[in-house]
């Protein structure tokens, strides 16, 4: 027969034994009610308090960090906008220097042309033939009554003939004058065209200047927004940083692919230079590391080249160099890059030769009599030429990775900061929820404790009701503890 555990008062009946124990323990539980309530409450506060404090601290830190990120972002944006405005002003200055420095000459030419046109215009003015002074006399003579006098008739006829002659002469003179004016007007055309062309040229230059001015206005508006630290400016800068970050990452990944191809091209022939039997680790040959080092040196030279060309701004010291020194550095970086590109092209050729040699050896080892005859056509040379060209071009292509790298570094600060703030906020919310949960759990446990000792509590209430004629609303256990404390 199995022996019952020591706590079983009623052997074989665990439930009844537990009930008996519970009944026995109930008075003690009732007696310990207040300290237990206080203990649970204290545990709730003890566990929940630090969680809530941590949450508050994290929120504060996230707020500070966000503020700092904002300041950095705006400062960066201000600097960038300032640079862009400066660049726009440079362009305007160039435009003014290039186009408008000839403006006085242009103006003089215009005035000359206008003066000439005016003079010609004046020459074109229609001068009516002066009315003959002798018309009145003719009228008077014409009104003379001939009265059949032959002398008078002849005189009149003579006057008529003379007038007709004079009329024809005057008409001819008039027509000649008109022809002259027409020829002058014909001569106008080139001047008009020249004038029109000069004006169009001036208009085009002025339009270009207006466009630049509009761009400067837009940049200035952006700059003002950044300076006044508006939400819109911050949002625009954040979005811009995010876009830059993803685009730069994409380009860097593509460049990494190029670097990998580059590595494959020179890793094998490097073993011809540094030996194939040396290892740095169990699977990493020294020749592979040497190839990597060459690629990194090329990338570094590319970086310096971009810096000295003032395309990127990663090294302030390079930018602080004097122009002659900077140009000297540019040529040094370019020469080294060119040399390395040449070495890579040679290594690519060597790689092809090594592979061909290895293939020939393997064929001879396989001892196949019907080995494929080596083709010496130009088609067989295409991969070799391709490798050489690729080996030469890739270092220069890699040099341009400096541009996305700069964007990546600049935008990573903003993106990383924003992500960190988000993580801290999430953590803060989680801690706050956990703190609230612990406090609520303490309350639930207090209530559960009261439910356990509901019988003594009912008795207590009955006794109280008898003693006090005016009943007061009963308080829950937790509230009673809070009130008493």
């Amino acid at each position: 027969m199995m022996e019952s555990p020591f706590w079983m008062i009623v052997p074989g009946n665990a439930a009844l034994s537990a009930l008996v124990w519970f009944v026995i323990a109930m008075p003690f539980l009732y007696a310990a009610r207040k300290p237990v309530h206080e203990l649970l409450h204290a545990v709730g506060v003890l566990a929940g308090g630090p969680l809530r404090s941590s949450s508050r601290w994290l929120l504060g830190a996230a707020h500070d960090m966000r503020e700092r990120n904002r300041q950095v972002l705006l400062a960066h944006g201000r600097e960038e906008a300032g640079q862009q405005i400066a660049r726009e002003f440079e362009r305007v200055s160039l435009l003014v220097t290039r186009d408008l420095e000839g403006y006085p000459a242009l103006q003089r030419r215009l005035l000359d042309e206008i003066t000439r046109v005016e003079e010609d215009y004046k020459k074109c003015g229609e001068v009516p033939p002066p009315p003959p002074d002798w018309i009145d006399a003719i009228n008077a003579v014409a009104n003379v009554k001939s009265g059949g006098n032959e002398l008078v008739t002849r005189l009149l006829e003579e006057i008529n003939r003379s007038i007709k002659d004079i009329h024809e002469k005057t008409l001819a003179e008039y027509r000649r004058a008109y022809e002259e004016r027409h020829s002058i007007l014909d001569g106008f055309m080139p001047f008009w065209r020249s004038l029109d062309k000069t004006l169009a040229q001036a208009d085009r230059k002025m339009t270009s200047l207006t466009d630049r001015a509009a761009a400067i206005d837009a940049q200035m508006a952006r700059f003002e927004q950044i300076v006044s630290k508006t939400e819109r400016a911050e949002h625009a800068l954040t979005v811009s940083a995010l876009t830059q970050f993803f685009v730069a990452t994409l380009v860097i990944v593509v460049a990494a692919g190029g670097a990998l191809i580059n590595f494959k091209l020179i890793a094998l022939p490097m073993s011809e230079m540094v030996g194939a039997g040396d290892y740095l680790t169990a699977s990493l040959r020294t020749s592979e590391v040497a190839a990597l080092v060459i690629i990194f040196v090329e990338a570094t030279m590319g970086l310096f080249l971009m810096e000295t060309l003032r395309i990127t701004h990663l090294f302030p010291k390079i930018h602080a160099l004097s122009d002659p020194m900077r140009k000297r550095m540019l040529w040094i970086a370019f020469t080294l890059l060119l040399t390395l590109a040449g070495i890579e092209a040679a290594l690519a050729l060597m790689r092809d030769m090594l592979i061909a040699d290895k293939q020939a050896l393997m064929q001879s080892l396989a001892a196949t009599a019907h080995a494929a005859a080596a083709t010496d056509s130009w088609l067989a040379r295409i991969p070799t030429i391709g490798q050489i060209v690729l080996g030469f071009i890739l270092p220069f292509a890699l040099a341009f990775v400096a541009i996305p790298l700069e964007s990546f570094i600049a935008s990573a600060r903003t993106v990383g900061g924003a992500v960190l703030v988000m993580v801290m906020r999430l953590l803060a919310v989680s801690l706050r929820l956990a703190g609230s949960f612990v406090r609520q759990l303490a309350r639930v446990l207090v209530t559960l404790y009261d439910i356990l000792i509901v019988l003594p509590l009912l008795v207590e209430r009955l006794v109280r009701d008898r003693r006090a004629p005016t009943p007061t609303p009963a308080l829950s256990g937790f509230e009673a503890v809070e009130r008493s404390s």
Partner: protein
Amino acid sequence: MKRRHFGFGLAALAAGCADPRSHSQAVYMLVDTSGTYAEEVNKAQLIVNYLLGTLQPGDSLAVARVKSRSFSEKDIVAKATFDNRPSQANAQKRVFREQMEAFTRSHSGSAYTDITGGLIQGSMFLTETGAGHKTILIFSDMQEELDKVTVRDFPITLKDIRVVAVNVVKLRTDNVDPRRYLGRLEAWQKRVEAAGAREWRVINDIEHLDGVLKG
């Protein structure tokens, strides 16, 4: 996995220290030229060709014949430690192949088979190379036959060496009683393992040589 190695490699580079362990391989091949097994020598050429195609610059290879007494440098038919430069290594491999071809054309049979002497000679050669991975290939039927004056019944040392028996053909007596063949191989395994060898393997099909140099 490779990326992790790459990372480790860069870390090692940054620390400025190279891996001191040797990663090169050294292979010593014993070719049995005694009795009827001498007919199989042409197959040995195939194995040597496979080894020449597989071994890398910096690795070592030696081929020695098993005769009545094989503990002698004179029994090494061809040996080479390939240059670190791949182009030079390829040239050495071509010369090695020609030496092997000359051997297969002009070899002569021997009356006895001293495999143990060859193993001792091979072990010494491999230790001298300082290679990280050492392998002895035994191209033989593994039937050792010694004359009365030759002494080979003493413990030998093959520490850290992989021993691979290749093309272990069955003798006429093995066909009568296969336990003789199995017992012979088991005896060799015990002897090789007792000598401290890292591994003992038997590869009878030459097409299964792929894993012979893994290690």
